[in-house]
């Protein structure tokens, strides 16, 4: 049993709903009690969709349990097929139905329909949403393409040359309730097309079952979101020889690397290599003198695997931040996140518990948090600026304007989204110069003034605990007074450093002098 207050991921059948709802001409019959219909609102409210998800719930009740729930399943399947006439039917169960073992998928297959039926077995007691989405997309791809496996030759990435046309790729992985997927697809298609590469199919977002059957018309697959598409890409590679890309084009360096990777695979010459860096404003904005203040800013990163890894790379290499924490709730991506964390000399945090993340955040005392909506709330409580970079989705993460995360425009969006929660360079510079001015004592700090008091509380309440800590370090009156004079945005760092120094030197009480000693020591 796992105690959860808030969770990052829903159950696996919600992942299946994401695939079904992303696509056309598909219907999903879900054996589930009435309350599980709440999942519809994820799509209609959070994604603001004007359509219901294509899902029929069997809505079994306690009184049905003694009787024939299997008949109820069949009745609902028949009604759904008659009403919605899907080209492919997904059949599955939610956590409760899994326990009563009606095997709705097998029942559906015995009903004599002529459309393909995908029987989804998604273990609800051991797996979660992203896994469910990945498995559904994989099962769907496999079902719709398995007959073509034996007849098909291995697909060479160079086939386009023989056929005398532009190379074609599939873009796999974007789905509803994925972070800014809708806009990422537009951006990536634009980039590919500029490079002379056509998009064959985008899936699951916007694809129909026929489109899935056409996947093998392309030469290469772009695995845009590993959490959802990697299993399918791997199956297509094994069975059709289709190669797929590994680089996620988030950030300038990754976008360039992505373009290079796909060119190498397709043996397509890069025509406009030099121009690439100038496609986005991020590199210049990051170099401009106003950005000087970004140097070494301490950032804490937590999110799904794909976005967390990309964020770490951008933070360090493109914005000059110092990454002081990196983690993910995607256990499936733990290995990759650990590897990235190792490169950055931090320990990866792999957890599903947002309170653990909050604790780690507190300890790392960052100046900026890049996280999910959950971290946004934790950061707010700690008085730290935050930008949201990953699912779980919130209605705020479905903006009306075009705001991809990927490609050139994505890099622009990221620069703005990450930097705006901080103070702008000039502003911070001025505060630094005038920090002894009475204007800049607590409660008077610029934009973030309203959070400053919270910062103070956080430090104060920490102090109370600190007194009882193992190390038994105490802040004296003079020490504490000096600490409050430190501008709030570096106060957390100064505090941690001073304590580190005190422990190092075996100093039991921190006075104003200790603080200056520590400052000298660490500078």
């Amino acid at each position: 049993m796992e105690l959860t207050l808030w969770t990052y991921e829903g159950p696996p059948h919600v992942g299946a709903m994401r695939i079904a709802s992303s696509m056309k001409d598909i219907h999903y019959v879900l054996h589930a009690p009435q309350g599980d219909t709440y999942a519809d609102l994820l799509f209609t409210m959070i994604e603001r969709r004007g359509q219901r998800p294509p899902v029929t719930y069997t809505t079994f009740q306690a009184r049905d349990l003694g009787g024939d729930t299997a008949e109820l399943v069949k009745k609902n399947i028949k009604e759904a097929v008659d009403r919605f006439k899907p080209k492919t039917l997904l059949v599955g169960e939610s956590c409760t139905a899994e326990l009563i073992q009606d095997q709705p998928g097998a029942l559906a297959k015995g009903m004599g329909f002529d459309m393909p039926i995908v029987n989804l077995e998604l273990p609800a007691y051991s797996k979660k949403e992203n896994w469910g989405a990945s498995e559904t997309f994989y099962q769907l791809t496999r079902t719709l393409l398995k007959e073509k496996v034996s007849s098909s030759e291995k697909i060479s990435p160079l086939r386009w040359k023989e056929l005398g046309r532009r190379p074609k790729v599939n873009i796999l992985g974007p789905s509803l309730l994925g972070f800014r997927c809708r806009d990422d697809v537009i951006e990536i298609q634009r980039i590919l097309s500029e490079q002379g590469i056509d998009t064959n199919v985008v899936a699951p977002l916007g694809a129909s079952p026929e489109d899935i059957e056409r996947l093998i018309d392309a030469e290469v697959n772009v695995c845009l979101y590993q959490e959802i598409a990697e299993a399918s890409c791997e199956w297509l590679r094994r069975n059709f020889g289709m190669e797929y890309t590994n680089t996620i084009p988030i950030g300038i360096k990754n976008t360039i690397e992505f373009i290079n990777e796909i060119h190498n695979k397709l043996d397509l010459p890069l025509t406009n290599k030099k121009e690439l860096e100038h496609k986005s404003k991020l590199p210049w904005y990051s170099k401009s003198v106003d950005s000087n203040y970004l140097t070494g800013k301490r950032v804490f990163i937590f999110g799904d695997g794909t976005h967390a890894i990309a964020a770490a790379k951008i933070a360090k290499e493109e914005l000059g931040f110092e990454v002081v924490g990196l983690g993910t709730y995607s256990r499936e991506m733990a290995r990759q996140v650990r590897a990235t964390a190792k490169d950055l000399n931090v320990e990866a945090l792999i957890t599903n518990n947002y309170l653990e993340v909050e604790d780690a955040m507190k300890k790392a005392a960052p100046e900026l948090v890049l996280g999910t909506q959950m971290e946004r709330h934790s950061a707010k409580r700690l008085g730290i600026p935050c930008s949201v970079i990953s699912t779980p989705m919130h209605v705020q993460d479905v903006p009306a304007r075009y705001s991809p995360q990927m490609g050139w425009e994505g890099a622009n969006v990221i620069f703005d989204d990450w930097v705006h929660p901080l103070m702008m360079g000039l502003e911070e510079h001025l505060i630094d110069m005038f920090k002894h001015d009475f204007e800049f004592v607590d409660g008077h700090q610029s934009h973030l003034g309203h959070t400053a008091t919270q910062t103070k509380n956080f430090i104060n309440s920490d102090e109370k605990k600190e007194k009882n800590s193992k190390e038994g370090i105490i802040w004296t009156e003079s020490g504490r007074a000096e600490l409050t004079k430190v501008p709030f945005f570096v106060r957390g760092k100064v505090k941690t450093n001073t304590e580190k120094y005190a422990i190092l030197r075996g100093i039991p009480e921190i006075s104003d002098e200790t603080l200056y000693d520590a400052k000298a020591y660490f500078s």
Partner: protein
Amino acid sequence: MSKVEFNKETGPREVFCGLTSIVWLHRRMPDAFFLVVGSRTCAHLIQSAAGVMIFAEPRFGTAILEEKDLAGLADAHEELDRVVNDLIARRPEIKTLFLVGSCPSEVIKLDLATVAEKLNKRFLGQVRFVNYSGSGIETTFTQGEDGALKALIPLMDSSNEEKLLLVGTLANNVEDRFKKIFKNLGISNIESFPPRQSTELPKIGKNTKVLLTQPYLSDTVRDLKHRGCEIISAPFPLGIEGSTKWFLAAAKAFKISELKVHEIISPLINRSKLALESHKEILKGKRLFLLPESQLEISLARFLHNECEMDLIEVGTPYLNKDLMKEEINLLPDNTKIVEGQHVEKQLDRVRESNPDLVVCGMGLANPLEAEGISTKWSIEMVFSPIHGIDQAADLAGLFSKPLRRNQILTSKTLVTH
């Protein structure tokens, strides 16, 4: 007696399950914690129903069953023990811990009553454990509150003191208003159930006169009757008419003259009627379709027809207790079509056919209906907003006039377009 048409419908539903009640119950009783024993789906449901993730640490959580818990019930009991211990260590301020059953815990027959009993012994004097089911195979939406309240009744001491007991969760300001009005009427011993602190349960007995504030409390009412309480039969205090009759029924039970009631509430009524006017202007003659969700639908239909002059196309309700709803049904216009249960697809077909001006529905359906050009109001808003009482009648009407007003604004042709 009106000739109301009753229908029953079965099929796929689109309603929340009883776990959702936790979202308002945990705010009502800040010293309580609601621990759902269920699946990741259950956890995700309350998270989604609670909407925004705004609480530092919510007073509810889920003990998510995992594969190994399903294998053996003994292990599940042990695991639950461990989770509860952790929780109490973390939240020592909790006074009452509700163990809330879910579909999975019921299907595997996890005996939460026994668990609660054991825990009660262990944490005697520190935390009280109570269990009920909010499962979707047993309950819909507001019925979770019925389960939670029913579970508290055995903990209520007996007393023969004469009192008025208001039953059903109300917004605090509404409750304060009611108490003040009752005091002016001469009823001074008033208590609420659920109370604002889970530990301050009212004492009940044969001189307890129960006045319901919410229509979805069938089981609670039955158990209160068993404890000797007298149930005052009345419509529900929604709108001027419902509230007036509700006050009158209470007054009658306390042998207070009708005259006195009118004397005290007529200024409120006059004020409220005035406030209602502007909403009525918008709502009058508009056609209303209520999909089932909160069990408040019948009372809302009565208010929106009788006081706001809307036309009722269909009144859905997830569950109908004809006994409790008797007074309400009597006030409905002739030929009102009440549909208990749901076949969501067929019901939506009827919505489209009848082309209503406004549909009351769950959150999952609202945007799709709006996209079809049909204005909507979410039922969940009714359980979170202060809508009870005479003073709130205009606010209640406002919940329904707003979407219509908004549509008027957005489709108005006052701006010149080129």
